[in-house]
């Protein structure tokens, strides 16, 4: 093996208050020191990323009176990829009176995360969820409503209560526009200084604290330095390490990876979520994958032919020659089993040679029964926009022929390690939203990403960052040598990329890396596959640095240069993901180790040895593993069963 690692000191204190779980967040809020309003004006906070977490955080910090500098790589903060979330947002409102409660949402999230999340954080998330809905409605987010004028909810992704608020299939868009509008309001008020088409390329750490960022102005190519009293990273997940994913093309790991290299621990990098209902790959040129909301599984039935290699059209396959495998294997939950289970089941039937469509990498999602039962109009009212999107991409009409779907990388539960205050292991560096590791454990439940992003940004961070800033009494001047070193690192990387002048594009390397990760560190991982990946990644990285071709120069807009820089960081992250996956010899949530399964092929956890968060510290001689032991005082650890 090429990458060696060592075990360091365990993480003892996560800063979560003790006492009854219901009171912990109140306790923390009361204990948090406050910043005098006159002093807030003198404190600068940098927020990188403008999705649900970053947009809501920047807006809220501006409302509180801090001097905020906000950055995004897109041309407007409204473009951040939160905008693409379709299904909905969970909240323990119990407006339906169907038995939901803060405790039940907490319980479901801990269990859904396969007992690899921190209880204190998850409970707070469930508590705050109700405030998010209030906030969004007051901002004018047009959630779906009933005829009586009250909010509609639906059951989502395996939940047995109806707690998901939604805005047709565009919930992420509407929530993001709410946060974006709040952010624009603060920009107009002068509390937030917005920098669009600006990408963070390095973190400035000085005196042991995060004090700023080095940024490239993507339109002019200029390298800028911005200093602050605290830095917040809200830069999203790293699913694009697989090249093909449901992430936007620009999503990348560079901000959190640079922070990791500067001392922030990276937790559970191997926890990736593979979403079961995406449109399958159609050819070699494929640039991204498109998700079809899993709300479709509420009415669609998943099946493949019983026989291997059955190439008849779906209409020609009679009912008794179809295998509705989710309903067969999981009679209690049927088509609504959680994402990781549905994904792996699809992979298994395709591996058996029963997949459909190009390359046999697809399964049917069939609405014929739903159309028969509810009528075409009712199905159209519920899913019309999704059916249209499917037809636009595939050229097939899902009202007449079943959809073809296949799992795709969708979300990364891992991310920078944070304590209860959402602060990383670098003082003054806070990490929110998908960029951190907290709350979802080894598997995220549907409609919980929007909840976490907004909980962090509107409610948690604005309180906890105040405690950090109030304690500071001014951090003093930033050491110029630290600034210059960070700038030099950025400049030399750009020069190096441009100087190679090889014979392969950055995209071709990214595709190869992605394929390798999908094959060896994807839905199913084995000791052998991971060792192979760990051997192959450094070779490919070396070829990249010797043979990549980046056209043009560092001046002005150069999209190929942007991509090459991101790919370079993906190589390093990919290695840590495989190492994390290799060391965790149990299966849990989205991490399935083929060696650890029960007699029915279900994921088998090993609580005795692995009930911990794996927080990796960067080290010159290889990563250092710090374990944060997870304690379950409230939710008893059980093996998940959806049968």
């Amino acid at each position, binding site marked *: 093996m090429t990458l060696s690692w060592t075990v360091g000191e365990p993480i003892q204190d996560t800063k979560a208050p003790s006492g009854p779980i219901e009171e912990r967040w109140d306790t923390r809020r009361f204990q948090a020191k406050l910043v005098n309003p006159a002093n807030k004006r003198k404190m600068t906070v940098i927020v990188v990323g403008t999705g649900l977490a970053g947009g809501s955080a920047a807006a809220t910090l501006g409302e509180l009176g801090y001097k905020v500098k906000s950055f995004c790589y897109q041309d407007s903060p409204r473009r951040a990829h939160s905008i693409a979330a379709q299904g909905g947002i969970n909240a323990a409102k119990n407006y339906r009176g169907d038995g939901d409660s803060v405790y039940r949402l907490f319980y479901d999230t801990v269990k859904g995360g396969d007992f690899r999340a921190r209880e204190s954080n998850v409970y707070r998330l469930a508590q705050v969820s109700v405030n998010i809905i209030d906030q969004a409605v007051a901002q004018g987010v047009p959630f779906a*409503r*009933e005829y009586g*004028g009250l909010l509609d909810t639906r059951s989502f992704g395996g939940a047995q209560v109806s707690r998901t608020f939604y805005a047709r299939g565009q919930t992420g868009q509407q929530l993001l526009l709410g946060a974006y509008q709040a952010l624009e309001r603060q920009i107009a008020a002068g509390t937030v200084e917005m920098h669009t088409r600006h990408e963070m390329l390095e973190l400035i750490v000085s005196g042991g604290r995060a004090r700023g960022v080095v940024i490239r102005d993507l339109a002019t190519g200029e390298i800028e330095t911005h200093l602050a009293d605290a830095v917040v990273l809200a830069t999203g997940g790293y699913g694009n390490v697989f090249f093909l994913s449901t992430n936007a093309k620009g999503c990348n790991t560079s901000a959190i990876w640079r922070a990791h290299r500067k001392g922030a621990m990276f937790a559970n990098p191997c926890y990736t979520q593979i979403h079961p209902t995406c449109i399958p790959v159609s050819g070699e040129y494929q640039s991204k994958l498109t998700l079809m909301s899993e709300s479709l599984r509420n009415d669609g039935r998943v099946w493949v032919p019983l026989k291997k290699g059955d190439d008849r059209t779906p209409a020609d396959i009679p009912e008794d020659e179809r295998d509705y495998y989710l309903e067969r294997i999981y009679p209690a939950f049927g088509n609504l089993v959680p994402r990781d289970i549905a994904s792996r089941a699809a992979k298994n039937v395709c591996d058996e040679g029963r997949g459909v469509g190009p390359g046999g990498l697809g399964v049917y999602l069939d609405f014929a029964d739903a159309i028969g039962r509810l009528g075409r109009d009712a199905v159209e009212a519920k899913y019309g926009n999704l059916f249209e999107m499917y037809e636009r991409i595939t050229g097939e009409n899902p009202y007449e022929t079943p959809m073809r779907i296949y799992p795709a990388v969708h979300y990364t539960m891992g991310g920078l390690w944070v304590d209860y205050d959402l602060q990383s292991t670098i003082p003054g560096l806070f990490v929110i939203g998908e960029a951190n590791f907290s709350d979802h454990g080894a598997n995220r439940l549907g409609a919980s990403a929007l909840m976490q992003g907004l909980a962090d940004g509107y409610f948690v961070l604005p309180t906890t960052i105040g405690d950090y800033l109030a304690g500071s009494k001014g951090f003093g001047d930033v050491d110029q040598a630290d600034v210059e070193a960070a700038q030099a690192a950025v400049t030399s990387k750009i020069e190096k990329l441009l100087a190679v002048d090889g014979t392969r594009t950055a995209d071709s390397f990214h595709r190869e890396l992605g394929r390798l990760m999908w094959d060896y560190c994807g839905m199913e991982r084995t000791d052998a596959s991971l060792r192979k990946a760990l051997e192959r990644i450094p070779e490919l990285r070396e070829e990249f640095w010797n043979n990549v*071709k980046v056209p043009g120069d560092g001046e*002005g807009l150069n999209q190929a240069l942007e991509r090459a820089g991101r790919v370079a960081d993906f190589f390093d992250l990919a290695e840590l993901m495989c190492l994390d996956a290799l060391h965790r010899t149990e299966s849990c949530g989205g991490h399935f180790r083929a060696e650890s399964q029960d007699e029915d092929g279900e994921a088998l956890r090993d609580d005795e040895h692995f009930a911990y968060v794996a927080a990796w510290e960067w080290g010159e001689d290889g990563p250092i593993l710090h374990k944060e032991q997870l304690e379950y005082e409230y939710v008893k650890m059980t093996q998940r069963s959806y049968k």
Partner: protein
Amino acid sequence: MSERATSTGKAGMNLTLKIWRQNGAADRGQMVTYQVDDVSPDMSFLEMLDVLNERLTLEGADPVAFDHDCREGICGMCGMVINGVAHGEQRATTTCQLHMRHFRDGDTITIEPWRAAPFPVVKDLVVDRSAFDRIIQAGGFISVPAGSAPDAHAVPVPKADADAAFDAATCIGCGACVAACPNGSASLFTAAKITHLGLLPQGQPERASRAKAMVEQMDAEGFGGCTNTGECTAVCPKGIPLDAIARMNADYLKTAGK
């Protein structure tokens, strides 16, 4: 199966592209012709441009700059005028969702950026749409600081109003409406936000001041006036209806003289 091409039904197409190349706002710019062969009908339009750019990169040429991000029709970042139509001829579709099965072997396709004075070209097909953000800054929000909201069920909203507000709220801010308008007007974009917030009870306190401020900002940015040609709604990927503009005008007129 429909008669439309699929990967198995139609071989690769050979296309001629005439693409606008412009190296920065100061450059005059010109159309440049490229040949792209063996294009799969299942490719998206942007994937077809990816293929061209990969080739240009290896040839040592400058790839074509274009904005894009989500590639699923919702972020609003992509946008180009294809054969004279913003986002191309397929209705209610963003450029990233346009697929090559709508073209034929041997076609010549012209590709240009949004053209409007308030959207200066950054490079090639990339334009600066920050004027849209400034219109939102002027009043496209409801003033409600985090933590100050009442319970979500405190104010019921009639379903019809909520649905109509939603229809207007689906605007993705791509700018196709401006590119298509003979006057370069941003009325549909501005009206969509005024309509979304003005239809909801939460939006009433600031309704008049919002319309006034947003319309004035729109004018200050240099967008043209609306003469009801309806080109905007015809190219809008989200089908924002034209009557939003009538609502905007009504709200704005109520503030006249105030």
